[in-house]
């Protein structure tokens, strides 16, 4: 049970030791990292630092083994196979990579996204759409930030690609990804899921989910910065051409022509962030130890409390569903600019984000033209911190 172990869990995170007063509520932007992850990165650099894949001296073999074991560890965590995981630097690179991979299939096609998307799941598609003369359709959401399924069915029909976020980083809505994926597959569409906010919080089984591609960031789930994943269906990965090229992803290069390496290496040009990848493997081990099911149910409680406490405040409006939300809340407070809210909370050691959270169209959809203040929690937060947040907001209103 996380609640009982919280003191011990928090003591695994050096930042809370360094800054005991810190109430960190910006985990949707980037999470904190436990000691085992930080130490692992140091271990790589201090014990067997050398480049992966090509060297045959002992250190090079050791680092290659650690790198590939980490890929296996992450695959197990995600319910996928290791050779379906491409290491990228973040979700954004993963989404650009898949968009460029699919470019040859998109000529005059239809790309369907939703109103909930992060800029990283909008802009790459706009780019390839303009290169391929494809159409972009946007599925509407209702007043609670939930997918309008009638509109979804209309829009997905005839789509070449469906790409949508698994959990919205603003509204906190969790989409029924399995249902949407199978509807899209029935239409013959390739399915892409932006899992940046889901992978840190949900127990995933990508094979069961059935999406062709799934993108995520290590830094949002306890891992080092500069490491992400693009999961891809093996058959598609084998068929598609690598849009980004260089060393390590080829087996042969001659004056004329070249041969790609096997999947997934064919999509990993250049020296990878091997220390980051190995650290990310440690992060998933840590999450497994806590248990993703426990995390899910504990965070449900946090999400509920967050909404209940904050909606008691006069003049507060929020985006998203009133029930079943992720442990985050994007809100505005009448008479206070979101920046001022964040700056005031900072004086109380509470770290929350203000702005558009890279999802401006969604804010505009809900009339939040100044953006919002967003508190986003993770399993290392607790109910007391939510109370402190509510208390400080009331303080601000009284100021």
């Amino acid at each position, binding site marked *: 049970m996380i609640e009982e172990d919280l003191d011990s869990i928090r003591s695994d995170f050096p930042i809370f030791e360094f800054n005991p007063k810190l109430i960190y509520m910006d985990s949707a932007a980037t999470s904190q990292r436990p000691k085992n992850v930080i130490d692992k990165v140091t271990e790589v650099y201090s014990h067997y630092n050398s480049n992966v894949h090509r060297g045959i001296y002992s250190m090079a073999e050791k680092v290659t083994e650690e790198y590939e074991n980490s890929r296996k560890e992450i695959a197990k965590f995600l319910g996928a196979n290791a050779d379906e995981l491409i290491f990228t630097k973040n979700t954004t690179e993963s989404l650009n990579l898949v968009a460029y991979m699919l470019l040859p299939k998109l000529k005059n096609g239809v790309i369907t996204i939703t109103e909930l998307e992060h800029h990283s799941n909008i802009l790459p598609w706009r780019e390839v759409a303009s290169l391929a003369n494809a159409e972009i359709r946007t599925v509407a959401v209702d007043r609670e930030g939930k997918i309008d399924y009638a509109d979804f069915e209309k829009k997905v029909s005839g789509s070449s690609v469906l790409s949508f976020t698994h959990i919205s980083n603003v509204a906190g809505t969790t989409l029924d990804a399995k249902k949407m994926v199978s509807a899209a597959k029935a239409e013959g569409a390739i399915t892409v899921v932006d899992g940046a906010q889901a992978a840190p919080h949900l127990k995933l089984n990508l094979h069961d989910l059935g999406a062709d591609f799934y993108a995520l960031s290590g830094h949002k789930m306890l891992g080092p910065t500069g490491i992400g994943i693009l999961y891809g269906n093996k058959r598609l990965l084998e068929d598609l051409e690598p849009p980004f090229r260089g060393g390590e992803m080829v087996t042969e290069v001659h004056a004329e022509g070249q041969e790609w390496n096997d999947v997934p290496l064919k999509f990993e040009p250049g020296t990878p962030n091997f220390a980051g990848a190995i650290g990310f493997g440690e992060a998933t081990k840590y999450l497994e130890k806590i248990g993703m099911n426990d995390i899910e149910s504990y965070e449900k409680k946090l999400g509920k409390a967050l909404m209940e406490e904050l909606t008691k405040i006069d003049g507060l409006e929020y985006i998203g569903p009133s029930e079943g939300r992720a442990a985050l809340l994007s809100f505005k407070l009448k008479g206070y600019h979101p*920046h001022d809210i964040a700056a005031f909370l900072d004086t109380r050691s509470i770290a929350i984000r*203000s702005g*558009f959270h890279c999802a401006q169209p969604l804010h505009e959809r809900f009339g939040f*033209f100044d953006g919002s203040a967003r508190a986003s929690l993770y399993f290392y937060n607790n109910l007391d911190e939510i109370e402190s947040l509510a208390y400080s907001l009331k303080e601000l209103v009284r100021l």
Partner: protein
Amino acid sequence: MSYFFIENIMDHYKNPRNMKIINEASSVFGDSNPTCGDTVKIFIKVNENKIEDIGFQGHGCALSMASSSLLTEMVKGSEMQDALKITESDLMRELGIKELGPNRIKCIALSVKTLKMAIIQYLSKVNHAGGGT
């Protein structure tokens, strides 16, 4: 110290000076800080190289509103050349802020930039018209 507890800032935020439209302005310029939605529009009335009157309208966080208000006070009645010299750090000093992180400097920079553009626009208009005041 956070700007929340600097009286000067909170006073300017809650009671902004020169928050008005000038109908017979010599120059009007508006700009925005799209990453946070802040907007400001500055009106100046010039007489013999001096900013005889100034007004602003805007919308944004306390810091951006207070700095717009203070800036109008600082330059009202001064020569345009002097007004052009004012930097973000002058404004910070006047506001009573010691330090400001890179993500917040933008909130102050907006009014400084906008005033500059209003003056430059005025000067180039006058020049194009073929002579000084």
